[in-house]
């Protein structure tokens, strides 16, 4: 209590308190702006009408979010499906298998992957990955699993490399570092005593990972995945280059689509009517809420994990 009399302490308290309060004020402010800017569109299309309509026609001033939500959902889920196994593999290798001299370089490489700006991923995607996808990977997919019934539907059409699949691959590369490093931290939380006891009982490395490390770190890893989900949801530039921004719902992964962020980035600058601009803000509001929910979920799981295994 007597510290309070010290003016430096008081200033310190005030400044740090204001700094943290400003973050909350900022978030509330952004939410308020999004709501007020999108009010025109909310009034005209309503919530369900906006979410369910697949029409996105700036000329006729009729807007719906369904195509954008579809593109966002597919690229996000697909990128998680590709990234999670790889990321968990990396994390297991780094924590349990790799010799010490390899741990450093691999860790650094993963962190570097996270440090590459997304615009560079986008350019690389457009000029390098898209041709590779169009010329080799997508035709190969079409020839192999494309002929199966039902699943084949996913691989119809002419492979052009500008599509949902390429965008998801780029996204997965971008989120691997996040998932991998959070999983690694979660694996490291496994008590060494239990692991060593298992080894003493004659368990193999695979058995230790499967029966001890993975169950112990389940929640932490899950939190990491949800966190990456949030990142994939909001990624813009890299996807904008390789997704095509076509407002459509398709069954084939070889078709162009649009995500919320890509639509915003592509169309915001030239949105010339009020309702057009307002609808873009409405999309942003939906994304804001989705990201918020997903981040809250992630925090929940990570906290739960930490409480269980301190």
């Amino acid at each position, binding site marked *: 209590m007597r510290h309070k009399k010290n*003016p430096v302490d008081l*200033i310190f308290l005030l400044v740090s308190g204001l700094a943290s309060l400003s973050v909350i004020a900022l978030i509330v402010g952004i939410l308020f702006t999004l709501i007020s800017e999108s009010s025109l569109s909310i009034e005209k299309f309503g919530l369900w009408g906006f979410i369910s309509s697949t*029409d*996105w*026609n*700036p*000329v*006729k001033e009729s807007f719906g979010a369904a195509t954008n939500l579809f593109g966002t959902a597919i690229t996000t889920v697909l990128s998680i499906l590709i990234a999670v196994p790889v990321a968990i593999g990396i994390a297991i290798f780094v924590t349990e298998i790799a010799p010490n001299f390899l741990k450093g370089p691999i860790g650094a490489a993963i962190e570097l992957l996270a440090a590459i700006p997304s615009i560079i991923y986008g350019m690389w995607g*457009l*000029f390098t990955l*898209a*041709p590779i996808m*169009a010329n080799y990977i997508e035709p190969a997919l079409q020839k192999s699993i494309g002929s199966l019934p039902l699943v084949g539907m996913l691989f119809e059409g*002419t492979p*052009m*490399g*500008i599509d949902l699949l390429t965008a998801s691959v780029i996204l997965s590369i971008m989120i691997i570092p996040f998932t991998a490093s959070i999983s690694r931290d979660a694996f490291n939380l496994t008590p060494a005593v239990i692991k060593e006891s298992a080894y003493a009982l004659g368990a193999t490395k695979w058995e230790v990972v499967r029966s001890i490390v993975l169950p112990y770190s389940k929640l932490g890893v899950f939190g990491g995945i949800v966190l990456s989900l949030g990142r994939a949801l909001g990624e813009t530039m890299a996807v*904008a*280059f390789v997704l*095509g*921004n*076509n*407002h459509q719902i398709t069954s084939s992964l070889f078709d*162009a689509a649009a995500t919320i962020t*890509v639509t915003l*980035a*592509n*169309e*915001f*600058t*030239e*949105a*010339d009517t009020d309702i057009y*601009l307002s609808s873009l803000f409405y999309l942003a509001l939906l994304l804001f809420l989705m990201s918020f929910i997903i981040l809250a979920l992630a925090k929940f799981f990570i906290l739960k994990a930490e409480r269980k295994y301190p």
Partner: protein
Amino acid sequence: MNKIISVFIGLAISFLAFGSSFAGNTINGAGATFPYPVYSAWAYEYNKVSGVKLNYQSIGSGGGIRQIVNKTVDFGASDAPLKPEELKKNNLIQFPAVIGGVVPVVNIRGIKAGELRLDSDILSMIYLGEINYWDNEKIKQINPGKALPHKEITVVHRSDGSGTTAIFTDYLSVISSDWKEKVGAGTSVKWPVGIGGKGNEGVANYVKRLDYSIGYVEFAYAKQNSLAHTILKNSAGQFVEPSFNSFKAAADSGDFDPKKDFYLWLNNAPGKKAWPIAGATFILLAKEKKGSNINVVKFYEWAFEKGDKTAEELVYIPLPVSLKNKVRAYWKSYNIY
């Protein structure tokens, strides 16, 4: 604490002071991305001779219009002209600054630049998804003797909102009532078919890479990239090449009317040698900002006098002399010239 506050106040005052001391020598503009290279080249040269700095932010036509309506900038720039009634509503005036054109480009094996002929009918039907193969009868008819493959046409368009799309879709609306009804014109539209590339570079890249594709890019991009441009039939029934001359012919034939604030697209221009897909990019001024308007007009007067060469180096088409004179008279009528 007092010290901190006084430092902040000091900083604020010095910012304000800087701001006001520069205000007289700076012109702030915002808007269209398409003319950005030529505006910034002009600004650089103008600064050398006059000391006036032009600060142009290429935030897009929509943003440019909004900013000039709110009067946060000295001028706005838009690729699409505003209608006279819209200008009146927001108390704005408008004049053209430079002309740009759009060129359909193709990637068909065995067909070189300037070899494929297209007309308005075919172009609109390709973009509507009604012509799907390169060996369609209609295409064969105007390209006698050319070996056209039975390959599916891959249609490429812009994925972002852009003035290029506005000019192109306006052209399609002018020449095809079907297009006008089903799709319409705008900076971004609901495309019936095709894939979208981001920016001119995106479209150019796709057309280069995808066999049997067709796309549309700005004249400069068609010229600078090794893309196979097409020859188009204009409204006089002549097949023309996209070139400075054919764009100039389009600009000359355009009847820009100062009474309508120059509201005009150059699409389907009537001249015999005119390239059919073109449009001017426009400058918007707020009527009541007379002081800054005079500065903006001084800059564009300089650009009209001395900037043609720079514009052509950057593959823009300068306004014809007759149109420049019309713009000058228009300025005079508002007492800003």
